[in-house]
């Protein structure tokens, strides 16, 4: 039997395993919690349940292009952004010039993927706090994005759509109208989400002042993306270190302002994601306007990738934060070394720092608010 009180009558701490099979650890994360009652004294994340040897595979596969499907599987809810980062790194090494049409399609799908990923992230966050219905409402919207992706790439989750120097295939003829239609129908849904979840009093009570991440701590841990912006730091690689054609678009960088409680709490991180979706819609609209209707998306794809000796590090803004690819080449057919800098891994490291002294229920909220994907943590 479980003993909470020892023979001498002192309070004893209880160690409990949260995961790997637990409804709200977003995959197969195992958290070792040391509890005093329901108050968390210590958290220790255990990872590795989804380790698939991404880096070793990339070295052994024998072709730079064959790594692309594997990048999909790192962060499987934002596969387009993962591919985008990897192909950008290779293109920078090869010094390729890309057709305008390719750049525009890439930006559109990357921003749509960002919306899809945030929809899943905040939907699952609501689910963790017991709000079941918003999750399904958001999934209806995510479904529309996946339908468009299915039309352009043939797959719904892991697309293998971007190629070095272009795209695997051209978009379907109605692509522009499909996306414009989605943008039009999705905008009012953000308002609906605000009514249902963001400004719900119980939701605010559960997330405000919980898991406060001060900006210095966030910087010390090298946090990025919505986690860092939730702490009030205006840092977005699309603006601060523009890649692709992001420097041409107008968009704001939403940051946490501590509206409902302390700056950098779970609610701030949440609302940053909601507001980012609106900005993504703005980028999509602008990109749709300037996207050329004609053009061969495969013209710049090299027949064989002949890489010079050298190294490259390219960082992109994935929905979860700074996704960096370090690629070293040594003249052979496959990369000498591929290292992915995964934002989820960094954010998981934050967990012990911001969850000490909170309740189990807060733990669930914190894990939900940093929005990790275990495929990316373990790679």
């Amino acid at each position: 039997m479980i003993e909470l009180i020892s023979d001498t009558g002192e309070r004893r701490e209880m160690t409990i395993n949260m995961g790997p099979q637990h409804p709200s650890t977003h995959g197969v994360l195992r958290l070792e919690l040391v509890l005093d009652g329901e108050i968390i004294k210590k958290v220790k994340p255990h990872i590795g349940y989804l380790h698939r040897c991404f880096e070793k595979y990339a070295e052994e596969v024998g072709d730079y292009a064959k790594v692309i499907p594997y990048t999909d599987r790192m962060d499987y809810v934002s596969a387009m952004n993962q591919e985008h980062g990897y192909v950008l790194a290779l293109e920078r090494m090869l010094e390729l010039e890309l057709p305008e049409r390719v750049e525009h399609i890439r930006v559109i799908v990357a921003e749509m993927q960002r919306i899809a990923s945030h929809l899943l992230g905040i939907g699952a966050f609501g689910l963790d706090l017991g709000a079941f219905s918003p999750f399904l409402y958001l999934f209806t919207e995510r479904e529309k994005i996946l339908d468009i992706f299915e039309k352009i790439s043939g797959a719904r989750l892991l697309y293998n759509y971007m190629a070095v120097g272009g795209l695997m295939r051209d978009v379907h003829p109605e692509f522009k109208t499909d996306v414009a239609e989605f943008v039009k129908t999705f905008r009012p849904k953000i308002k609906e989400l605000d009514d249902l979840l963001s400004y719900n009093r119980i939701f605010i009570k559960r997330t405000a002042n919980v898991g406060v991440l001060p900006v210095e701590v966030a910087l010390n841990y090298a946090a990025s993306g919505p986690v860092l912006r939730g702490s009030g730091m205006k840092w977005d690689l699309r603006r601060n270190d523009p890649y692709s054609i992001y420097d041409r678009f107008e968009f704001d960088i939403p940051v946490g302002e501590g509206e409902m409680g302390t700056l950098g709490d779970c609610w701030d991180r949440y609302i940053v994601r909601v507001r980012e979706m609106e900005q993504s819609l703005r980028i999509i609209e602008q990109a749709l306007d300037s996207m050329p209707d004609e053009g061969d998306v495969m013209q710049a794809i090299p027949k064989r990738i002949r890489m010079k000796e050298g190294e490259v590090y390219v960082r992109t803004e994935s929905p979860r934060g700074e996704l960096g690819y370090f690629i070293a080449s040594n003249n052979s057919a496959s990369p000498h070394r591929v290292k992915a800098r995964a934002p989820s891994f960094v954010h998981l490291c934050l967990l012990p720092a911001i969850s000490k002294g909170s309740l189990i229920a807060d733990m669930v909220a914190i894990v939900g608010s940093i929005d990790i994907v275990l495929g990316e943590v373990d790679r």
Partner: protein
Amino acid sequence: MTTLLNIPLVIHLALPLTIILVYALVAIWGERKVAGFIQDRLGPMRVGGWHGWAQSIADLLKLIQKEDIIPANSSRFLFKFAPFMMFAASYAAFAVIPFSSGYIGSNINIGVFYLLAVTSVLTLSIIMAAWASNNKWSLLGGMRSAAQMVSYEIPTIATVLTVIVVSGSLNLMTVTEMQSGNDILGFLPNWFIFQNPFLIVAFVIFFISILAESHRVPFDLPESESELVAGYQTEYSGMRWAMFMLAEYADMLLLSLLGAVLFFGGWNSPFGDFMSGPLWGFFWFMLKGLLLVFVMMWIRWTLPRYRVDQLMHICWSILIPLSFINLILVALWELIF
């Protein structure tokens, strides 16, 4: 006093059970339909033809066939016994519910007191299940539930007391009979909720408390699936788990029916003598109860849940003081008018 139907003891025993079982099957299907409706989807549609009406029967058959798993290090007797005790507690409480003007299980003069006392056993059986499972998640769920139910019994009882102050009787049949007729403002039925403005406040407090008593969102902390896996039910499977579900739904109905008796005139028809009589009485009574059950489902599929400390805060620093102040105000109102 209306004449009670003269029916044999066997039927007395079987009638509430039949009502509960039929209700549970309908309510579980209904809850999934309500959830589907709220979430813009269809819910169960396959089993039995029309809108999947036989879904809960199919689920029940599946649960009966499942292996009865008892954890190796559990306290076997308590583990096996807890679900049945929980159901027995909520079933026993139905004895004093006046289902219609012609039927009440046991017409005793301490009805409400008996009901509140018997439902307290629910807490005991949850702790029993939690402790016997020998699982840390179960234990946490059990402790939460004990704290929650013991706390929320106080505002429940205080609001029930306000009605007792007005009615002057603990017998639920008498309480219902006092609400017959349509005299308020010439057309409103004489239900307690219309009789006294403070009783409306009492009903709001009562409803919040029964949400917590029956572990419904936003107070479903004992079994909050995203925090405690499944709370005290974690180790249960098959028929024993079904017993918990049955008891939970029965408890929802019981407390809703209690609310209907205390505030909404029980089996009284809202149209005076029109559509009244024992059978219509049963219809109106169940309708009122099921409406409250529907509101509970509605809330469940809309709101997130509270945290355990916030739950306690709501109870001890808002509901309990408010319910006692309200009790005094109701008593003063009765004294003056």
